[in-house]
């Protein structure tokens, strides 16, 4: 997998705070086994820096067009896990990525290196609309991972 820049929940949420009000989509790549850690970090950072709860769902929810239309109501930041490969899902992301963008929300897509690579290759529209692709690692428990 290509060595994309690394980020942590603290740094990412800081970035999201600055970009509030502008649509954005980040593909966040985590190493297997760190998923629950980074989700906990993300929830905590959003709570501290934005004083809000962070809904975390599965990207397969987007297969439901009604759910897709209801996205603007689901908060300014939305985390969607991509945890398995599905051609339907890729088609959906590729063709409806603009609809996600139009919600004005910031989307964080969480996935593994293998799925990220497959997605970046097979969904060119989606890839080209991504704000950034980042390797996402848990915050340093010693507290030294601020910057």
């Amino acid at each position, binding site marked *: 997998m*290509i*060595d*994309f*820049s690394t980020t942590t929940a603290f*740094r990412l949420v*800081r*970035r999201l*705070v*600055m*970009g*509030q*009000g*502008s*649509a954005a989509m980040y593909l966040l790549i985590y190493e297997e086994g760190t998923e629950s850690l980074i989700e906990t970090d993300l929830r905590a950072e959003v709570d501290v820096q934005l004083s809000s709860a962070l809904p975390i769902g599965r990207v397969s929810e987007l297969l439901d*067009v009604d759910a897709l239309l209801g996205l603007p109501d689901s908060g300014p930041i939305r985390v969607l896990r991509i945890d398995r490969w599905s051609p339907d899902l890729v*088609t*959906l992301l*590729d*063709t*409806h990525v*603009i*609809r996600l*963008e*139009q919600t*004005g929300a910031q989307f964080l897509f969480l996935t593994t290196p293998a799925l*990220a*690579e497959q997605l*970046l*290759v097979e969904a*060119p*529209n989606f*890839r*080209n*609309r*991504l*704000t*950034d*692709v980042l390797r996402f690692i848990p915050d340093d428990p010693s507290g030294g991972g601020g*910057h």
Partner: protein
Amino acid sequence: MEPNTVTFDRRQIYRPFLERLNSESPWVQNLIVPPEHDPRDPDQPPIHEAFTNTAELSRGAQMALVGGIGSGKTTELRLTLKLLKRHADAVSIYVDLAELTDLNKLNPGAILIAIGMELHQKLKKTEKERTGIKAAYQKLRELAHGKTKWVAVDPSYDPDPYDGPDLEAVHTPGLLKPRFPAMNRDVTNVQSLVFEIAMPLLQSDAQITVLIDGLDRLIRPERFREFAEQDLRALREAKISVVVAAPLSLWYDNSRFLQEYFEDVKHIPAAISDPEKSDFLSRVLLRRGAAELMGEKEISEIARFSGGVLRDLITLARTSAETAYREDQDRIGFVHVRSAIRQLGKRYRVGLGNTQRRRIQKLIDDAEFSIDDPISRALVINRQVLEYFNSGRDFFAVHPALVEALKESA
């Protein structure tokens, strides 16, 4: 914190810039820098002007716009829509199909329904009250959203197979093959409903133009052909002009369907402007307030490494701003721009196998590249290779951000 202390908030430096880079914000439409000429031919007017002129002079004309991902097709359609308003009798509608429905589950007739419903919005209240129009609109709504009807089961129904001889249709094809297939019955039905709704506008001799966005994102481009042959053809009989965004792969298709079917086809290359020869890209950034946050050197570096692709220009500016903010800087420095270029290059590097790398290397070393080769074509569609125009000649070059990423990985 001391009372009355003014605290410095760096977010306020960067946020307005990021908001101006967000193409989906309605007010950003005023910041668009319109192209000065056709991207393929500096002697021709810009695409939106050409399309507007055709729609104004040849009512019922059908035009297609093809272009790479992020090349600015939607921008051109929106500029066309704006320019069409210069005549008071213009009735122009913009339909983004991806916004309305799941494109890959779209059936023939659906586009026509969407157009009919939009046209209905343009009618005066008294026109909407007319019986024929009211009924046609009601039927269109039912066709669009479906309906549930409860019916009693008929007890006399007897599916007796011995009522009479079963007949099977045997079709002998004619000798003259039609240029386009016949319109299917559902589409013909929708067509008559749409014409009923459009009647008041057509009778007043209005100049009607429909701009259709989204169909360029069809995963299977052959479906576009089906929509053109059914839905768009149904509009030809009325004097309703159409401008539609079409999939880029059809531009390179040997069947020349686009050129055969449409009166005018315009192609926007992914690289809308050559950053080495034009300051168009720098002007786009300056219009969005880049000068407040970075110097000329940084602006020019972003323009250069965008390769001329508008969306990459925006991505590089945005990532540079986010990097500078992350590093607690009040301005975007050269180092932040370089970091953004590396990030973009890595994104383009993903998924390049040995075959693709060989094609890319051949292009870099020997300027050899064949668009007829499917692997090479995929590189162009994915923007890893960009198409440029110079003095009427097409040529290809590897995306400059990818060149950097490849050098780094070598």
